[in-house]
């Protein structure tokens, strides 16, 4: 059982790293959103694995919470993407820096 935890967490960490690199490296806002989804799922996987390790339902509850959160986030995010395309005619996140200090 110990190997489930360590292997699962290793996969989770890998997914998180992939997501983070994607977030930092990609300039297309759609890809940034995809990267965020990957990172959210990495966190969800870590919860599932931990829940399985200790035989608790909490991990799965947290995963459902994350799922709902991700759904909400995507709906807001896609609405923003739509607005971004309409108003600025670009999907490049670096092009938008009006809030510069």
């Amino acid at each position, binding site marked *: 059982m110990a190997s489930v935890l360590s292997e699962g967490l290793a996969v989770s960490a890998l997914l998180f790293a992939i997501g983070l690199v994607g*977030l*930092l490296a990609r300039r297309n806002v759609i890809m*940034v959103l995809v990267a965020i989804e990957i990172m959210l799922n990495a966190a969800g996987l870590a919860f599932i694995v931990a829940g399985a390790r200790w035989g608790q339902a909490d991990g799965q509850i947290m995963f459902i919470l994350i799922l709902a959160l991700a759904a909400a986030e995507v709906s807001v995010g896609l609405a923003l993407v739509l607005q971004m395309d309409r108003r600025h005619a670009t999907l490049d*996140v670096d092009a938008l820096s*009006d809030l510069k200090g």
Partner: protein
Amino acid sequence: MRDALVLVPALPLAGFLILFLSMGALKRGAVAWIGVGSVGLALVAAVVAATGFWRHGAAPYTQTLYTWLSVAAFVPRVRFYLDGLSLVAMGVVTGVGFLIHLYSAEFMIDDEGYSRFFAYMNLFVAAMLILVLADNLLLLLLGWEGVGLASYLLIGFWYGESLNGLAARKAFIMTRLGDVAFVIGLLVLFNRLGTLNIQDLVRNAQAVWVPGSFWPTLAGALLLGGALGKSAQLPLQTWLPDAMAGPTPVSALIHAATMVTAGVYLVARLHGLYALAPAIERLIAVIGAVTLLLSAFAALVQSDIKRVLAYSTMSQIGYMFLANGVGAWSAAIFHFMIHAFFKALLFLAAGAVIQALHDEHDIGRMGGLRRQMPFTFWSFLIGGAALSAFPFITAGFYSKDLILWDAFASPLGGPAFWAAGLLGAFLTGLYTFRLIIRVFLGPAKSKIGRRPGWLMAVPIGVLALLSVVGGLLNIPSLFGGGAQFTHFLAQVLPAQALRPGVRAIEPDLETAAIGASLGGIFLAFLLFLHAPQWVEKVKSTVAGAALARWWGAGWGFDRLYEGVVARAYAGWARANRDDFVDAGVDGVVEGNRLLHQLLRWTQTGHVRWYAMAIALGAMGWFWLAVLS
């Protein structure tokens, strides 16, 4: 019946609230009925309460309304206290106040601010009644500041003229200087004696403090500061002549009959405390004597009819302070009452003259009004005679005479105080009849407009009557009287023992007093009616002209304060323009601005940059957590 006491201040307060909240929406008739009626009903309530007071054998009566606030041992109550002293003061405030309100109903009829005027006047009467009826010093302070506010509002009543506003401000600031000392005095008393209830406080003070020791002297001096400011005595006297900028009924009510005598009332109310501070008593007597002389000289050369009366008010209050200082408390209160009658009369009659001559204040341009305004002339003559203590028939003679006698005969008094009072009496006759001669005798100089109607004539007539018969209350035993007023007040204000051997020379002193008063009047007729060229001759010399200018400016106190106090204060204000206290606050602002500039570059506006910062930050924390 004594329960009616609460209505006495409550009715004028209600009148004020109605008039104030209606904001001028009421018709003039309704305003007059409310404004005058509320004070009239207060007078009725005062009479009812006084009747009840007599029925209970003149025993002190307290009426508790509610507990104001309760903090540990500090439990001031809204509670009224009626004894002989507050009864006299209450009677004067409601009685004279009602007559002046009645007079104002006609006097102010053409004024735009009719409703505002009566609102402020009612506020004043309510505050003054709270002052005189208060059972503790905190409630007294509420009334004390209330009358100060009403005085400020009414001096600056015609606020269209900026000079009136300046006069109001001056009166407010000068009295406030004294009030600061007054409040500190209250704190000292509470800190040392644990109560502000006047009766308890005096009792505690007499139990705890040794006469002449430090604390009663300090407390007495601080409270005296407030009294000096309110009563326009040296060195805080300069505001009173300028306060004449207000309407004439205001001068009559506030700056002659009632408010300016609040200091006299305060000292008499706390006489048990002042008995423990003989040094302060002596100071009160000296201040009173000096003020009465200085302002009598100043009154000699004034050309504004109301300023003559203002300086004369200061002088008469000087007499009251002199009486308080030599321990003749009841003489001070008797003069307070009689002075309220005749000085209100003089101001009201002067108001009739001013109105008849179309707002003319300069007595140089008056004259010969005796034939044109006979009623006003005879009333003014009665008031003037009472002011200059015309022997035997006027009330002013008996009240001033009592003060002169006590100034000589009291163990705290002496020949010097008596001589100052005597010289003052001489000068009073001189300046009073100078005024009467200039205004009413000689050739007529201008046509008169409106004569006073019955609403103005009745108060003048009643006050003239009181100025004569008021003396019957307190005829000394030398003239075969019973001195009932003094006996009545003796419960509250104990009579002083006399110095040994003075009874024998009482007739001589009386003769001297009569001589001083008649001599002043005689000299006035000689100098200002029969031989005016003598006065002109003195005035045309360099020294005479300089003296007239000096006295005319009230001995130059305004310039002295302007030069020493105001100039120094303005200089300090200029030097400290950037306010050294602000420097610390500004430093915080500058430091924040610097930090802001430093951190600004991190706000690039690039989302990925922020994500990177978050990721690096999180990694950094993890690293730290793993390392430790």
